[in-house]
């Protein structure tokens, strides 16, 4: 079918972002130009900056419930209605990265699909098993069976379909220099089981595919920006939800897509609460499917009021922008004949145009109104400015600080080169510098140990407090209503207190690292003042940047299970109160113990290694700097002797 492709995004949407990107490119050029002459002692620092720039690709994840219209929205953004697969049933099966103008594109590759390896596949199956185990522990054999059934069914179907290829594909990846719709569809959508049985290709590899990356060069988009399509949450196939939730913690910005006919359900709230653990400023809510309402402008006001009220009630909302629109309108605006849109959507658009005093007579009028009403442009602009203000601004700040450090070190070394040579106890000075580093590292080691213990204690206390509060709430409930009423206790409070314990442990570790680096810097300065006697030369003292503390994603592991109120609700059936208390306490402990272990091992330990890296880099930079000064002061003859 012939389809006119009208560019959907006018470039102004990305203006704020583009300006920042240009600045970053300038830094890059400057760093590269310094690399030329012999300035060995800053080479490592510069390489580190260049790597940072090369790896800088902010991620925008598009998330929401199944069938909110996420893929449709991304297609509209691309101006290609058939790009990502779309369907009336739950469809997107894997996180799909759309990399725009990426410098990290593997050679001759436009589409890259990675498969699970044996270990990951087993673990995926096991994660299903874990859900099952949890259910079993809680005494719900029915749910446990359900999860087990889902996992096994998936495995059987995949193995039957792929036959001998199955084992061979594990751990492999498929790369393509070109791709089309059919190709993509065999990897990133579930497919219809009936179609698949009859040899259909949609979803052929879906269960085995771990990630999909598509590389798109399009001058309408800024460089190095990645949008990610995700599988919808609240799907009855629960296995993939964990993947989507993990994607959130890796993303710098999230677009939460709601459906206008049911804007903000408990599911959406749970999702938002998890995301807002990141940083509320980087979340945009897009209420999609406005074309399905009779009078979109009037309803918009009502929806906005109701969403804002609910968000406030739950202590969220400050800083979250709420936008309205329709992926379908955007899609029709890009089609050859926008006037052919579904009658109900057209009539809604007429309402909208009337309120906004836009004509609707010619097809071009309709196109213009649909483009405007789609909200796409506003959405992109909001996202772009959030990226620019968030990760973009931070990147520029870091690069600026690094550049100042490097330049000031180079200047000092050059000045000293002009002075008359002097003799020094080179070995002694190097020994002192080495000891400064050793001391700092061992102090960090102690800090880590101490902080980790404190964190663990705090997590245990949070757990105990939660069990206590849950049990007393339960007693109160039983006293008031008897056992014949349903009851539930919100596990979110435990989660929030665990999260804040973790975040404050990380912050405290950062503070301690900052303190020990200040001391180490003072010691190095002392070496310069006393041993090297370079009076008036200071160490560069730009701000130290520790990596952003990411909220622990494992705390959000079980969105569906949380909301599977049926579990908690059925506790009232357990009979006598004493037994009830015991049983309930056991369940809570069993479910939350792994959370504590994960927080420590999968989040805190890696974090302390990240901080260690910053400490090492910082001290290595200073050591090299002092060495360079030392070299200069030794004079050319001494230097030549050293080399020989």
């Amino acid at each position, binding site marked *: 079918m012939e389809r006119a492709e009208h560019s959907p995004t006018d470039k102004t949407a990305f203006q704020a972002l583009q300006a920042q990107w240009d600045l970053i490119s300038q830094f890059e050029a400057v760093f590269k130009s310094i690399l030329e002459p012999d300035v060995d002692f800053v080479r490592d620092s510069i390489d580190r900056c260049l790597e940072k720039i090369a790896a800088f690709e902010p991620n925008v994840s598009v998330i929401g419930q199944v069938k909110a219209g996420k893929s449709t929205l991304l297609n509209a953004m691309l101006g290609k209605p058939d790009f990502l697969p779309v369907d009336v049933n739950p469809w997107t099966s894997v996180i799909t990265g759309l990399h725009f103008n990426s410098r990290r594109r593997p050679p001759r590759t436009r589409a890259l699909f990675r498969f699970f390896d044996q270990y990951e596949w087993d673990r995926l199956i096991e994660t299903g098993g874990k859900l099952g185990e949890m259910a079993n522990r809680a005494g719900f054999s029915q749910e446990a069976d*359900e999860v087990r059934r889902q996992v096994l069914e998936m495995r059987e179907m995949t193995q039957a379909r792929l036959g001998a290829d199955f084992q061979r594909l594990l751990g492999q990846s498929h790369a393509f220099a070109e791709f089309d719709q059919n190709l993509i569809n065999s990897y990133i959508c579930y497919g219809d089981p009936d179609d698949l049985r009859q040899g259909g290709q949609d979803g052929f590899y879906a269960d085995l595919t771990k990630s999909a990356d598509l590389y798109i060069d399009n001058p309408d988009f800024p460089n190095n920006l990645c949008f990610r399509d995700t599988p919808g949450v609240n799907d009855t196939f629960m296995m993939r939800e964990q993947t989507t939730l993990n994607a959130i913690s890796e993303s710098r910005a999230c677009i939460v897509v709601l459906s206008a006919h049911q804007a903000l*359900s*408990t599911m959406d709230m749970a999702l938002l609460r998890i995301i807002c653990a990141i940083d509320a400023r980087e979340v945009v809510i897009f209420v999609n499917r406005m074309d399905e309402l009779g009078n979109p402008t009037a309803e918009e006001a009502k929806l906005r009021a*109701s969403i804002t009220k609910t968000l406030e009630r739950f202590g969220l909302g400050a800083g979250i922008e709420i936008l309205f629109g329709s992926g379908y309108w955007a899609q029709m605006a890009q089609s050859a004949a926008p006037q052919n849109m579904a009658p109900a959507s057209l009539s809604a658009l007429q309402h909208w145009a009337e309120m906004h005093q836009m004509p609707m007579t010619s097809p071009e009028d309709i196109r213009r109104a649909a483009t405007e009403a789609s909200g796409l442009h506003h959405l992109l602009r909001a996202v772009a400015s959030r990226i620019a203000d968030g990760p973009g601004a931070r990147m520029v700040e870091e690069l600026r600080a690094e550049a100042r450090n490097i330049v000031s070190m180079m200047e000092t070394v050059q000045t000293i080169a002009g002075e008359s040579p002097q003799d020094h106890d080179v070995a002694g000075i190097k020994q002192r510098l080495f000891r400064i580093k050793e001391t700092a590292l061992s102090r960090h080691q102690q800090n880590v140990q101490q902080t980790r213990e404190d964190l663990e204690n705090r997590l245990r206390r949070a757990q105990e407090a939660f069990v206590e509060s849950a049990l007393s709430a339960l007693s109160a409930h039983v006293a008031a209503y008897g056992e014949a009423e349903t009851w539930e206790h919100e596990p979110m409070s435990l989660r929030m207190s665990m999260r804040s314990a973790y975040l404050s442990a990380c912050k405290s570790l950062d503070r301690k690292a900052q303190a020990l680096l200040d001391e180490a810097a003072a010691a190095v300065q002392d070496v310069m003042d006393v041993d090297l006697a370079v009076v008036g030369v200071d160490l560069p003292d730009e701000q130290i940047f520790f990596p952003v503390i990411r909220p622990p994603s494992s705390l959000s592991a079980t969105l569906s299970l949380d909301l599977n*109120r*049926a579990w908690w609700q059925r506790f009232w059936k357990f009979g006598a109160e004493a037994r009830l208390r015991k049983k309930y306490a056991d369940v809570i402990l069993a479910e939350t113990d792994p959370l504590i272990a994960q927080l420590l091992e999968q989040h805190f330990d890696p974090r302390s290694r990240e901080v260690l890296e910053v400490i090492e880099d910082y001290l290595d930079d200073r050591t090299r700097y002092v060495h360079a000064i030392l070299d200069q002061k030794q004079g050319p003859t001494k230097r030549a002797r050293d080399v020989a």
Partner: protein
Amino acid sequence: MTQMKRKPRLLVAGEFSAGKTQLINGLLGANVLPSNVTATALPPVWISADHMGDRRVGLDGTSEPLRDLRNVALEGTLCCEMQMQAPILDYVDLIDTPGNSDPNIDATSWMRMLDCADMVIWCSNAVQAWRQSEKAVWQAMPPRLRRNATLVVTHADRLHDSQSADRLMRRVLRETDPFFDHHILASLLVETDLDFVANHVVTLAGQVACTGADLLSAAPQQMRPSQQGPNPTPRRVARPIRVGSSPAAEPTAQNVVPLFDGASAKSRAEAIWAELVKNAPPNSPEEWQAMMAEFMRAVDGELEPAAATPARHLGAK
């Protein structure tokens, strides 16, 4: 003539904004209850021809006259009872419920009403049909209510073509088969679709009434309407009930994909009822009553030895 002690009660539930109120208004043939794009924060509303006027029933068991439905506080309210006349109310009581998954409304608010329901219609919007949050509710649904349960997939008009409708309903059927006996895809804005659902409800009412033994014993004491009013003669308000053969009741292929026609009877009693309805569908409440009587005779004869015979309860006056 054999007479039932009370009419079966149909609870309409589902996620918020799924179309529950639209469906009930449609069945009543009048816009009795407010329906909204955003969540309608109303307590459960129990509509019956047999209530004594309109009242608000509190959680503490007290009740008071109901003035304005829109001003009733959700908190502390068990439900609002409304007395009215409509053809469908000659066969069943209707209970509208606040939506599930609304962050501002506790799910217990509607779940409490399960105790007094005899059958459930679950509404699910076609554009986001059957999600985990719905499945979780049904996994916990008392088995008594899983029987005869109907899934109405609403907003059928939002699907762009019959192929989409077909794909959707195949999936929905695949996933919901354990929970529902009946699956209907309908647009609640289309008269013929509403007729189809109305017919279905009347047929179901018959089936449920015939297994009324557990129907009556299952209802906890407090949940029964305090007094049964004298049955006033029905006054036609709007929607006439056309059962069975009426051509208007045929679903249009485009709008309705009746995947289940209500014929797979669960018990001998239901089979008998289905047979009766098939041969001579009742066209008025009077005929329906007569048919119930005939049915009771048939059942009395055939099913005597069965454990708790439905006849005893149904026949008792």
